[in-house]
Every structure is written in C-alpha cells, then in structure tokens.
C-alpha cells in the first residue's frame, strides 16, 4: 500500500520539519506559522492514515509497512528489535484521534504563542509540541514492547517539558513534579507487565507476546492485567491515580492542556485495551468488574471535585477524570460481557468507550482551547474574576457553549450519543447470567446518570459565571476577542462535536469494526436504517434507537418555526432595554451577582460527607456600628481526600527514608572509597560463593 507509506512518511516528516522550524527560526511570526504548519501536516497525515487504516478492509495478517525497524547492536536480535508498524485497527483509531485534535491545536498555537513573543523563547515549546505529537502518534503504531515503551517514554518526557513551559511559576514546578512522579510510577508497572509477558527468547513483538500469554497461568495473566491497569490507569487519570491531572493540566499552556486532556490520557485507555484484548485476549469477569467499578467511581468523584473548582482549567481537568471514568465504564462492561460469552454486547461496551474517547477528545480539546482564549484575554484562570465575556468575545463564547453542551451530554451533540451507547450496553447487562453480578449494571447506570447531571450543573456554572452576567474585574471588562487562528481552531472542534454526534449511525459500526477480531470479538451488530442507529438489547429483536441527525434537523426546524409562528399569530414585537429588576435598590454592581462558590454551594452542602467543607468568614465591621459591614472575606475549602490520606503518608515515608539514606552521602571522599571497596569485596565474595 504505497498510499499508507506516503502518509506515514508525511506524518513523521511533517512533525520533524515543524520541530526543526521551531529550532531554527526561534521567534517571530514565521517561526510560529512554520512550527504549526509542520505539526498540522503531520497531524493531518496521521488523521488520514488512521482513518484509512481503520476503515479499510484488510487482508488477514495485516499490511506490512515496516517503516521503522531498528535492531540494536550488542543485544540478541530478538530482544533489540524495535518495530513500528501500522497494522492494528484499534491503534488506527487512536492514531486518528491524535490527528483530529492535533490539527486544530497546532493552528491554535500560532495565536496562543504570540503572547510569548519577547517574554520567552519559542524554541522549546514549538519543538516539544511537534515531538510530543509525534510520540503520541507512535504509541498506537508500536508493534513491539520496546517500541511501545520508547514512544511512551518520549511522550512522557516531552509532555513533562511542555507542562514546565512556564516554570517560573512555583505552582508549575510542583505540578511538573507530581506529573513526573506519577508517570514514572506508572511506567514501572507497565514495564513489569511487559516483562511478565516476554517469551523465553525475549522477542517483544506483540504477536509473540500474545502467543506467550496463551501459555500463562490464569493467575499470572490476571497479575499482568492488574499491573497494566495500574500503569495505564495512572496515565489515564483513573481514581485514585488521578492526582497529577488537576495540577498538571492547568499548568501547561492551554493548547498543550488540550492535547494532554484530549489525547494523551486516552492513550492510557489504548494501553488497557491493548493488554486486555490484544495481548491477553480477554479474561475472567472480575477484570471487567474492576474496570467498571474504577470507572464509575472516577466518573462520580471527578465531577464532584470539578463542581468545587473555580479555576477554569482545573475544573476542566477534573472533568477529564469524569469522562475517563465514563470511558472505562464502557470498557469494563465490554470486558465483563466478553467473559460471560456475550460478544454482541461486549462490542457495544467497547464501542461506547471508544466513541466517548473520540468525543471527549473533541469537546475537551475545544473547552481547553476556549479556556485558553479566556486566559489569553483576561490573564486569569479564576472564574470569580470573570463575567460578561460573551459580549467581549462572542465567538469564543459560542464555541465554549457548544463544548459545554456536548460535555453535559445534551442531545443531539456527540457527548450524548456516546453516553447513550454506554447506557444501552449497561441495560444489556441485565442478561448476564449471574444475578449478583448483573446488579452492578444498574448501580453503574445510576452513577453515570448522576455524573452527567452534575456535569450539566457544573457547566452551567462554568459557562454562566465566566461568560454571562457583568464583568467582575477590570481585566474581564477589557477583554478582547482572540486572533482568527485561535477562533478557527475552536470552530473546527465545535463542528467536530456536531458532526460526530450526527454521524452516530456511521461511527458505531465503524468502531465495531475497529475492535472486531480482538479477543474473539465480532463486528458490531448495530443496524443502521437511514440516518438512525439501532442497537440490539437483551431481548432478541428488541432495540434502542436514536437518530441524532434528524433530531438536530428537527430542532433547527422548530427553532426556525417559532419566530414564524409568533409573526403569524401577531405576537407583539416591542422590546425595551432596561435595568435588571433590583428589588428597590438603586444601582446594580457586579458584586451583587451569584458567584461560582455560591452556585455550587447547595451541592457542597448535599455532598458534605465527601467534601467535609471548612468555611472561614471574617467580617470587618464599620468602626461606628456593628450593623454596617465594611468587608467580608469568605473562604471555603474541601478536604482533598486522596492527597491527604493516600499520597501524603507515602510521600512523607519516602522523604523520611531519603533523609536517612542521606547520612551515607557525607561528602567525604574517603567514605566513598570505602563504599567502593566494600562493594567490591561483597561482589567478589558472592562470585566465590556462586561462581563454582
């Protein structure tokens, strides 16, 4: 297939040229455009390659386009073989995902990095962005363990450096440390999982690993799965491994946040699917149960913490945890159905998870770009200082609104459609033969529904406080619309949100084909009649149906019909602009508005058992009379459970060990020489003991 080969070259070439352009040109408008152009060519080619690779019917055994195949010197060939190959349909979906978000993000970077001109060098972020995109594209293309780990690590390092772009802020450094710690922690588990799967000759090709997996005992297989789940779960942001996410994503530049949240954490999902389906070929039901439970808990906790956040980007980061949870609900349900011999339903679960993966990439990418535009215009992430931005930045507001509606699972946008597929899969779960297991499904449904309801509340807050009302600060009053390149980038993703929803009838069968064959899965049995999508449920012949495209057209038609009807029935058309009704007061000030804190207050009280909120109110009274208040400071905090009770003890323990170990490092050369001699003596002693 020469076309695929050309696209692959174009992808890698594009990214490398973009990186080179950033390095050579350094600054100025040309540097920004060429960096972005390289990335856009690369991402565009990657997108096309992914789509072609994913949708094309292929001969059995796949197409061999070894593009990069290196054998390391000094080690046996079977071990030192690094191969990347575009063969797997599952990987192709994720490759397409990188491209889909990569193109608008690169374009957005042109406008966004203009603010850096003169303040910091454009070389590192431009180069790293291209390399980051390249490494993310290589992860799903990897065909051997070594290749996978190399791409994975390149991705981790470039993303860490990108997070550290604004390292002059102390928060960024702490966020970067968390991220680095968690990602290396995860890598350790991934490496052990790969090692356990390695066949005797050390060949790391995925086919060899899959073959080796069939010979493993069930206990060892489960161990491999759990290790992989921990490793990839820490990248994906599954609770309780999510702690790095809400600090690292806001610290990064906004277009990088969009990539981190939209794409990189999704590769954790890819990793879990790679291990569970492709390498291990499915497993016992409790694997699925574990994934489902973690997913449901992540979905709920993610949105609950998001509600308490007033930093726009942190709020979005917590929503990533929620959506990763929804994705894992689908994946977990799929794994469960697979083990109970319900392949049609299993496909539905995986398709729901994958569909939501793509959709979340679009709307979360869009929302982070929108948040970046707001940050660009107001120089703050604190929602309490915003307000009224819809008048100053109407287009950004519109795009952000589309993203907010999509993430709140409002029909007919894409977020609703994929959550609907996950819901249908869970309803099908009633046909699991074991009743005590089937009971998990309604619980997951309830948690999913609560999470999506709370997400809607949270995005009313996020959009309402940020864009609506009256400006709460001077910066918000002076805000300006962002450059065209940033607007076009957001518009692209907003359009993708609409199209991906309307194209449900095509997406579900296509994603079904992507997982077909893995772990013995059949293609999706979804029937598409016209524009509508029907899914098979538990009972034969019974289906759930939706048609997002007619729904969208119908809504548009109705929207157009109402003004016409009003005109026909001679409704009054008079309109007067006046003050907001004020209950008798004289003037309206921005401080009379509801704040984000106040908006979330009822939910903070209702979920007080989780939040354990603490409130400080300090009132500064007028010196003459206690009936008049000069100022009130109100501060509310919630208990960060995981940081305080899970991570802080671990960190404290590690620190105390490190302090003790430090005693060895006296700084005296004599002591170090003594260590060397002692080590030598011990090694020789061991050699004497075992050498014979």
């Amino acid at each position, binding site marked *: 297939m020469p076309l695929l080969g050309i696209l692959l070259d174009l992808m890698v070439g594009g990214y490398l040229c973009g990186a080179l352009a950033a390095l050579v040109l350094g600054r100025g408008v040309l540097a920004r455009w060429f960096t972005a152009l390289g990335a856009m060519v690369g991402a565009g080619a990657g997108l096309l390659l992914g789509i072609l690779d994913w949708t094309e019917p292929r001969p059995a055994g796949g197409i061999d386009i070894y593009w990069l195949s290196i054998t390391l010197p000094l080690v046996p060939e079977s071990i030192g073989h690094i191969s990347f190959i575009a063969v797997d349909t599952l990987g192709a979906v994720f490759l397409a995902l990188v491209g889909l978000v990569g193109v608008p993000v690169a374009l957005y970077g042109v406008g966004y990095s203009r603010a850096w001109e003169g303040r910091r060098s454009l070389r590192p972020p431009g180069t790293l962005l291209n390399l980051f995109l390249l490494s993310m594209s290589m992860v799903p293309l990897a065909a051997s363990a070594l290749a996978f780990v190399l791409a994975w690590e390149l991705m981790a390092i470039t993303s860490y450096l990108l997070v550290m772009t604004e390292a002059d802020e102390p928060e960024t450094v702490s966020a970067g440390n968390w991220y680095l710690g968690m990602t290396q922690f995860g890598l350790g588990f991934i490496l052990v999982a790969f090692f356990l799967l390695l066949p005797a000759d050390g060949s790391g090709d995925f086919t060899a690993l899959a073959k080796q997996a069939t010979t493993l005992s069930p206990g060892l297989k489960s161990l491999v799965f759990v290790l992989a789940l921990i490793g990839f779960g820490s990248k994906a942001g599954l609770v309780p491994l999510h702690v790095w996410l809400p600090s690292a994503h806001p610290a990064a530049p906004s277009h990088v946040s969009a990539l981190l949240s939209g794409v990189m954490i999704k590769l954790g999902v890819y990793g879990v699917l790679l291990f569970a389906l492709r390498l291990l070929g499915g497993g016992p039901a409790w694997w699925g149960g574990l994934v489902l439970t973690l997913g449901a808990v992540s979905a709920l906790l993610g949105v609950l913490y998001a509600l308490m956040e007033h930093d726009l980007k942190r709020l979005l980061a917590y929503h990533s945890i929620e959506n990763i949870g929804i994705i894992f609900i689908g994946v977990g349900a799929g794994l469960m159905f697979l083990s109970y011999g319900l392949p049609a339903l299993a496909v539905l679960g995986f398709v729901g998870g994958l569909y939501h993966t793509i959709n979340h990439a679009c709307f979360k990418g869009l929302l982070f770009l929108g948040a970046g535009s707001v940050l660009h215009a107001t120089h703050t992430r604190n929602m309490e200082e915003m307000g009224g931005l819809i008048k100053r930045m109407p287009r950004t507001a519109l795009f952000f609104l589309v993203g907010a509606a999509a993430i709140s699972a409002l029909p007919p946008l894409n977020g609703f459609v994929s959550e609907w597929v996950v819901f249908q899969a869970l309803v099908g779960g009633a046909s699991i033969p074991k009743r005590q297991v089937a009971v998990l499904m309604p619980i997951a449904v309830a948690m999913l529904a609560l999470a999506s309801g709370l997400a809607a509340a949270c995005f009313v807050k996020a959009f309402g406080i940020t864009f*609506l009302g009256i400006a709460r600060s001077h910066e918000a009053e002076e805000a300006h619309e962002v450059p065209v390149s940033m607007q076009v980038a957001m518009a692209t993703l907003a359009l993708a949100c609409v199209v991906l929803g309307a194209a449900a009838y095509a997406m579900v069968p296509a994603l079904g084909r992507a997982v077909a064959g893995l772990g013995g899965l059949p293609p999706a049995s979804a029937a598409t009649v016209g524009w509508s999508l029907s899914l098979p449920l538990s009972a034969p012949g019974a289906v759930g*149906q939706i048609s997002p495209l007619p729904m969208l057209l119908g809504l548009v038609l109705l929207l157009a019909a109402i003004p016409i009807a009003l005109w026909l029935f001679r409704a009054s058309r008079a309109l007067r602009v006046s003050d907001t009704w004020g209950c008798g007061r004289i003037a309206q000030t921005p401080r*009379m508005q509801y704040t984000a804190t106040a908006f979330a207050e009822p939910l903070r009280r209702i979920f007080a058992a989780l939040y354990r909120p603490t409130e400080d109110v300090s009132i500064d009274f007028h010196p003459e009379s206690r009936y008049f208040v000069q100022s009130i400071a109100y501060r509310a905090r919630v208990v960060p459970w995981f940081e305080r009770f899970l991570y802080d003890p671990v960190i404290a323990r590690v620190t105390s060990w490190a302090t003790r170990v430090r005693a060895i490092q006296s700084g005296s050369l004599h002591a170090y020489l003594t260590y060397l001699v002692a080590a030598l003596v011990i090694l020789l002693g061991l050699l004497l003991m075992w050498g014979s």
Partner: protein
Amino acid sequence: MPVLKVYLVALAQTTLALILAPGLVGLIRWFKARLQNRSGAPAWQPYLELRKLFAKEVVVSRSASWLFRAVPFVVFASTVAVAFLVPMLAVPLPFDSVGDLLVVVYLLLLGTFFLALAGLDPGSAFGGMGSSREMTVAALSEPTVALAIFALALSAGSTNLGQIVARTMADPATAVSPGYLLAFGALFVVTLAENGRLPVDNPATHLELTMIHEAMILEYSGRYLALIEWAAWLKVLLFFSLLGNLFVPWGVATALTPGALCWAGTTLLAKLVALAVVLAVFETRVAKLRLFRVPELLAVSFVLAVLAITVSFLAR
C-alpha cells in the same frame, strides 16, 4: 397515503398537546383552589395569561446578552420536540426511531440547562440563585430517571417508547407488577421535582427566598415569558402523558382509524384529569420542603427505583 397519515397523527398529537397544556395547568390550579376552599380562577385562565403576555412588550436587562433572547426559543423548541416523541395518541409514532426515553429526558435537560444559563445572564442575584437550585435538583433527579428507564427497559426489552407501550399492552400483567409500580412511584416524584411542584418548589410562590423555577425566569417578560411558561406547562402535560401511557397504556391507538384515535384522545383526557386531581390533592396535603431536605425526597425516589430494578431482576 399511510405514511403521510402517520406524520399527520404525530403533528396532530403535538398540536393537541400544545393546546391542552395551559388548560391542564389551569385545571390543576382550579382543583387546588377548590380543595383549599377558594373559588379559584377558571381553568382557562392560563390561556388568557398567554394571550396577555404575547401582546405585551418585552423588557430585557441591559446586562443580558444574545443568549438571553435565544433561550426562550431553545426551551420551547426542545419541549415541542419532546412532544413529537412521547406517545400520547398512537403507537408506534413515526418519530419513535428518532429518540427513545433517554432522548426525552435529556432533551428536557437541554431546556433546563439553557434556562439556568439565562438565569445567570442578567447578573441578578435572584437569577443565579434560581439557576443554582434548579440545576441541583435536576442533577439529583437524574439517577432516579435513569434507573426508572432501566427498570422499564428490563421489562420491555427496549428503551423505545413505542415498544414499551406495545409491550405493556400485549402483556397487561406487567403493568401491575411490583417493578412497574415502584418505577411509577419513582417517576412520580421526579415529575414533581422536574416541574417545580410542591414539595420541591412552589409554583404559586412569589416570595423570593423560596423560589426555584420562578427565581430563574424572573427577568423574563412579554412573549419570552409566554414561551417559557407555555413550555413549562407543556412539560407537565408530557410528564403526565408518560406516566399515564407508559404505565397504563390502555386506550392508546395501535391502528390509525378515526374511532381508535377518538378513543385514544378520550382516554388520554381521562388520564390527564385523573393525574391532575392526584397532583392537586397531593400538593394540598404536603408542605414545601426546605431546599436541603429535597435531596432526601429524591433519595426516596431513588430507593424506589432501585427496588423496582431489584424486583425486575428477581422476576426474570
């Protein structure tokens, strides 16, 4: 042309719902007034209110954006769209494949979402208060709704409304099964919460601190208010039709003959009036709950829904 006829029936049903909705709410108000020993306004009072509002000028806040003016249309359009999906007169409707019960629920949430945004737009404290509370109640009632749908889908094997109705008609025993009854109870509580009825919200109140829905739409006037009020009334009628036709489907026409449709219309009216009486009696008997007691009520409905599913599981 049978195809055309089906679409005509769907259109007729939606028109009927739009026409009946103000009357239904007027009837509830009249019943309540009689139960409270007041003479009450006539049941057609809401029609007069609509006529008045459509003739009046709109006053828009200086701080409001374009969104404020778009929201009444979005809310009205999404609610009317739901009217096309809910089986009121006949099954299966031509739009049955466009949206199932989940779509109905989330289309209504779409309206709530935009109304809540509009509440924040003029920058008044009341609007924000209403939005915050409305979204809290809406979010907390979501799990109950989802579980009730789950329970219905378990029995009917589908989330499609037409299929659920057809299934219950074919097998009348399911309608009195404990699972169905519990799901009915759960959905009834949700109906109260989603429509801002007592004990969650008081539709008659104008005391600012107790308002939820009314606080949110405080800034609206004229034709915008008319659209929003009409949509809210339509929502009541749609919830009543769901309760009536999903759990007691008899009378719904399965063939599009004039006789069957007339009978369907008559039974629908009877169900609506019966539910109106139940709601009026209920609202007269209970007092409004404090906002922070509302979650307890929703928790009760959630437990009912969980029980409904457990029973459905055991009954399999």
